[in-house]
């Protein structure tokens, strides 16, 4: 990457400060309209189509879209684009199937969180479903929040010219402090509004930059010739892969989309939409945003590969192109877009993690149902505390963070996506089946992921099925101690254990290493829900 001049760095830093000030201003405006618990956790169910639509999509993509997706096409050429149909199919399911059914269901239930939707849909007399769902969400979300704070810290320190370990720490603290302040003051409304602002910034950057860069290169024909000269496989949809490797890659990339209906920070946006009309309007907005952003990111990677032959890390292509091609003020805005993609996800996930603690655990499980005002104060303090824990983890346990993040998307997707789809289908599942689905989705995700990487450390990973059995025994033991489990819950835990061990055996025996773990975990979780519900049918529906 070409060294950046001091004056450019100063201009970029000034734009970055203005961007952070804009976030704080939006947060302050939202805070003035936030008066109670439902306001804080769900914006009083008052979001319009633009804020609900863009917020749902922007919060789901994180820094992955401006860094990882760009890196995919930089590394693999056109075949690196397979993530785009995968994600867009996920968007289709979310906005045309989930959103129109989830909004009226959650409004009629009075549910505020994803956990609330599940527990109220099937009943949860002993809080088994609520505690299981909350535990899975908290583990995945805290890993996610800390990882995004780490990414934000790196992006801030490089764009503000902060150097070394001290610069990284300052970068993490600046980004996290702004987000914690905005989220704790304005709650869901502030998160949705800042997502709208940041989502539009990301879309403009990912439409404008590749078009300008291709024009500067000499047109699309020159881009194709350049890619072919680097590697002729860059111009095919398979990228030179053959047989099982090709199909495993394509199914895995398409499988990313299976996770979308299970993301708490995404589907709560549909629950917060004002009415059915706003849901219908958000469909086209979300789909256009998705097409623009995914294909824009892909084009940035492709053009980066030709324009920046010496760039070592393809994930830096957007930032490198911005600094090389455009005026420093525009480069600052483009770098703000990179950080926007990260921060819009941090704020959404921070709020979900905080709602899991303050609403699902303290208010609902412990029965400390306070008045609306106290619920708001509790929510605000929880965001601050969870955010501070996120900062500490991001600064001290980076390796642990990335270990959790490996499982976060597929874990959440497999635990909740089949369940939400079955909840909206209105038949065939009871609360024991719901418990089995969450445990199976999480268990199979972990087993498959470790199974895929077994070659890295076979002695450790070969013991996964022992870990599964011990985990199942602990869950059963705790449930018995707390007298929380009914017979059907025990059936659910045993079914999840068997399916997890079977999936471990499958990945080992059949060598399905190329298949993304979310695909088997999603379908086995759905199967577990239906099978356990059929076995335990007389107990309840």
């Amino acid at each position: 990457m070409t060294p950046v001049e001091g004056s450019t760095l100063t201009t970029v830093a000034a734009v970055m400060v203005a961007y952070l000030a804009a976030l704080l201003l939006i947060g302050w405006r939202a805070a003035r309209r936030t008066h109670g618990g439902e306001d804080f956790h769900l914006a009083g169910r008052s979001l319009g189509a633009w804020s609900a639509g863009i917020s749902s999509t922007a919060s789901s993509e994180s820094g992955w879209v401006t860094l990882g997706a760009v890196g995919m096409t930089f590394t693999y050429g056109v075949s690196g684009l397979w993530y785009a149909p995968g994600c867009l199919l996920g968007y289709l399911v979310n906005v045309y199937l989930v959103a129109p059914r989830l909004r009226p269901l959650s409004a009629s239930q009075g549910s505020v969180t994803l956990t609330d939707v599940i527990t109220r849909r099937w009943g949860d007399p002993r809080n088994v479903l609520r505690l299981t769902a909350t535990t899975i969400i908290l583990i995945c979300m805290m890993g996610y929040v800390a990882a995004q704070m780490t990414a934000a810290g790196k992006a801030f320190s490089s764009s503000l010219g902060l150097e070394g370990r001290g610069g990284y720490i300052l970068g993490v603290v600046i980004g996290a402090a702004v987000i914690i302040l905005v989220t704790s003051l304005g709650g869901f409304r502030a998160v949705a509004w800042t997502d709208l602002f940041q989502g539009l910034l990301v879309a403009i950057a990912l439409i404008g930059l590749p078009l300008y860069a291709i024009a500067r290169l000499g047109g699309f024909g020159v881009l194709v010739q350049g890619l072919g000269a680097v590697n002729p496989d860059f111009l095919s949809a398979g990228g030179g892969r053959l047989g099982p490797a090709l199909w495993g890659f394509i199914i895995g990339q398409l499988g990313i989309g299976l996770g979308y209906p299970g993301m708490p920070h995404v589907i709560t946006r549909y629950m917060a939409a004002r009415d059915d009309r706003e849901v219908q309007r958000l469909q086209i907005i979300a789909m256009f945003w998705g097409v623009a952003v995914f294909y824009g990111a892909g084009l940035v990677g492709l053009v980066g590969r030709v324009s920046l032959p010496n760039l070592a890390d393809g994930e830096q292509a957007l930032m490198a192109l911005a600094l090389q091609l455009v005026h420093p003020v525009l480069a600052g805005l483009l770098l703000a877009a990179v950080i926007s993609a990260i921060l819009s996800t941090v704020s959404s996930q921070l709020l979900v993690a905080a709602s899991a603690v303050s609403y699902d655990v303290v208010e609902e499980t412990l029965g400390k149902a306070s008045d609306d005002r106290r619920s708001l104060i509790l929510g605000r303090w929880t965001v601050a505390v969870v955010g501070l824990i996120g900062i500490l983890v991001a600064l001290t346990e980076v390796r642990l963070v990335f270990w959790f993040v490996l499982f976060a998307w597929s874990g959440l997707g497999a635990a909740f996506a089949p369940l939400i789809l079955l909840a909206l289908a209105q038949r065939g599942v009871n609360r024991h089946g719901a418990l089995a689905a969450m445990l199976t989705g999480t268990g199979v995700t972990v087993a498959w992921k470790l199974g895929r990487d077994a070659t890295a450390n076979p002695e450790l990973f070969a013991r996964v099925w022992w870990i599964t059995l011990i985990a199942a025994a602990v869950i059963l033991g705790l449930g018995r101690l707390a007298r929380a489990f009914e017979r059907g819950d025990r059936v659910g835990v045993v079914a999840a254990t068997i399916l997890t061990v079977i999936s471990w055996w499958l990945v080992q025996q059949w060598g399905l290493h190329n298949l993304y773990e979310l695909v088997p975990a999603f379908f086995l979780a759905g199967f577990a829900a239906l099978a356990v519900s059929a076995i335990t049918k007389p107990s309840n529906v």
Partner: protein
Amino acid sequence: MEEYSLTVGAHLLLWAFPLTLVILVVVEDILDRRDREPER
């Protein structure tokens, strides 16, 4: 000098899929609006 071109699969992945998707989404939106008109 060798001349390179995108394969059929690459054309489908790069252009045909997103274009078809956008057309379908727009058509769905238009039909949706037309359905809503009589309700007013």
